[in-house]
């Protein structure tokens, strides 16, 4: 009798495990957009909305970015990848394209032949590799904006810089008063790329993308000038001293948000922590300040003399692909559809830029009318955005990062640096 009972228990256990294995969708990511569980075991943020939408059971594994890259690589080549995985567009997603399901048939079945109209075009372009739709963009991130602290500027009777000379002048005036004018985490390559793309697109829009594609040289006059201006920022007073030792997060973010720096370059992903009551509360608690500042957003100052500030450029912040070897594709698609489409209002509530058309920012938790005005202005800039953030080729990315640091420390001239990038570009197999 005892053995019979044990057999029944074992059978039930096996059956229940089999059912879990069949129905539960697995999703790994480095930035799960709150599709997770908090430290006390409670579902949080978008996960609550996901469940409310009737999403299939989902097991979310959130990694720090570096760990995620290693885990993804290992899981993929060992055939144990999750059903859904987050990707950064550009170099990263290109490497994994062969392992990812083509999502076009799923999209056509779900949304019809004109499904692309539902998404921002720039997002879909960057998740398409050799004609195959390898992922869908969850949210977008637009960079190339100058964030400023109006409270500090008012204190010193200064205005937001509208051109290069004003940028230098305002930064130096603040510096003379013991305040950091513009703060930048030049230790981090990603924010340096943002700055370089911003300058390059302001000087001569699109040349940088032509160079990336191999249709123009990286030693093009406008790109050399962009590199030269980047280098000048370290000696003309725009950059804070020791910028190469600072990271963008947390150093610069902390310096700016807590009122120790008047300006920084940042993007839409930072909206939540600055412009919402909930996000700012977290920033204040983390950084230990209590003052309320008036934060604003504008484009990079005019550098080509046309009187207009720089335009933003955008890429999917996170895109999600489905493993081609998943044995659970129907459920995985159901989950993906909810994460991509149904949760857009949730992301918009946290002031992420939606990847789908027609989903407005939800400013109900904005800290002030000044913050709302800044967000409205940002939205206008997003509509006028030009170009992308992410590079396709890792070699070019690395070479550009090295070039920028070498120019910043004075090891290379702008031309030498761009020659180095061009050399890397020529070694790329396109």
């Amino acid at each position, binding site marked *: 009798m005892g053995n019979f009972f044990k057999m029944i228990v074992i059978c039930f256990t096996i059956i229940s495990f089999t059912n879990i294995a069949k129905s539960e969708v697995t999703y790994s990511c480095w930035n799960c957009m709150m599709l997770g569980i908090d430290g006390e075991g409670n579902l949080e943020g978008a996960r609550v909305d996901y469940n409310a939408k009737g999403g299939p059971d989902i097991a979310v594994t959130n990694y720090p970015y570096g760990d995620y*890259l290693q885990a993804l690589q290992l899981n993929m080549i060992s055939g144990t990848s999750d059903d859904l995985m987050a990707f950064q567009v550009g170099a990263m997603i290109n490497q994994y394209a062969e392992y990812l399901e083509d999502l076009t048939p799923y999209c056509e079945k779900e949304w019809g032949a004109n499904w692309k109209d539902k998404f921002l075009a720039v997002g879909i372009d960057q998740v398409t590799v050799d004609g195959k739709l390898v992922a869908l963009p969850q949210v977008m991130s637009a960079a190339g904006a100058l964030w400023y602290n109006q409270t500090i500027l008012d204190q010193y009777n200064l205005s937001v810089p509208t051109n290069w000379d004003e940028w230098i002048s305002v930064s130096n005036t603040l510096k003379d008063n013991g305040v950091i004018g513009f703060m930048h985490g030049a230790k981090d390559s990603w924010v340096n790329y943002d700055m370089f793309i911003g300058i390059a697109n302001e000087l001569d829009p699109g040349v940088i993308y032509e160079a990336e594609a191999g249709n123009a040289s990286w030693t093009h006059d406008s790109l050399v000038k962009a590199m030269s201006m980047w280098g000048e920022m370290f000696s003309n007073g725009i950059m804070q001293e020791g910028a190469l030792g600072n990271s963008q997060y947390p150093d610069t973010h902390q310096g700016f948000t807590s009122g120790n720096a008047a300006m920084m370059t940042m993007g839409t992903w930072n909206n939540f922590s600055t412009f919402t009551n909930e996000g700012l509360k977290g920033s204040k608690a983390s950084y230990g300040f209590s003052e309320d500042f008036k934060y604003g957003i504008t484009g990079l100052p005019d550098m080509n003399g046309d009187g207009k500030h720089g335009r933003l450029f955008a890429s999917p912040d996170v895109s999600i692909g489905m493993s081609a070897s998943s044995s659970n594709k129907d459920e995985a698609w159901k989950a993906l559809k909810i994460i991509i489409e149904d949760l857009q209002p949730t992301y918009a509530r946290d002031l992420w830029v939606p990847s789908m058309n027609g989903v407005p920012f939800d400013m109900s938790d904005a800290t002030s009318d000044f913050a709302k005005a800044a967000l409205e202005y940002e939205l206008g800039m997003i509509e006028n955005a030009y170009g992308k953030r992410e590079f396709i080729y890792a070699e070019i990315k690395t070479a550009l990062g090295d070039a920028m640091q070498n120019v910043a420390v004075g090891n290379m001239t702008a031309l030498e640096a761009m020659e180095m990038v061009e050399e890397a570009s020529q070694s790329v197999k396109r």
Partner: protein
Amino acid sequence: MFKNKSNFVDVIYILPAFIFITIFFFYPIGYIFGISFYEWNGISQNRTYVGLENYRDFFTDKIALKSLINQFLWGVITILSQMFLGLGMAILLRSQARFKIIYKLIFFFPNVIAVAVVAYVFNKIYDNNFGELNLLLESIKLNFLTHPWLGDPNTALYALMIANIWQWTGFSFLLYHAGMTQINEELYESARIDGANLFAIVKNIIIPLLKPTHIALLILGVIGTLKTFDIIYLTTKGGPARSTEFLSTYIFQKGIMEFKASYASTMALMIVVIALILTILQVKGYNRK
């Protein structure tokens, strides 16, 4: 097959270790050796055979050379400093100082802190604008000495060396302290009767008799240097301008960030070769009379 039962028993004893080492040491090394002859992103099912191209690239790679130089400087300065300071602290504590236990705890405490915490703390201390070091210098009117310690390629590596020395000197101290307890007290007494001062005792008794400890610390130090990754990655990420790049961080960048698994494997293999050569030299030095 076996001449006697004793040989068979020997093999049985060795077998578990042999299997373990084969699976976790020889196989991975063989694997990375194999893929070092290919061009491969570490992900794709397709690899392209390129022969010795990765090795040729390694020996002409200026960043790899810079990383090796950085690592060499790091090894020499940090290992010798930790040994010198650790020995000094052990000698001072040998005297009849009060609160010995407290001193030992204080000396050893940094050793048990996670490297991630040390990296975070020193990152804050060295910050140019809000860091404690520059604020301290300003407060004692030494403004001219304030500096972007981690933001200047001329100082970043040395600033990180100080963090490393601070953390690991306690380990050297502990080993030297343990080693000194093994030295017969009568030797010290005899030396004192013969009129030897502290310097003579250190030079003629302590340093020679602690030779096994010196060798152990050297070997551990060299291995630690070759494995150093976290403090660099968490503070400077190898910058500014590669001034703190190590082979380990460069391998991570190439293999994980740039998807050049085969070239990263080539560099990893080079680290194994370097570690092997250095260890053989050290063991030979130890065995020399």
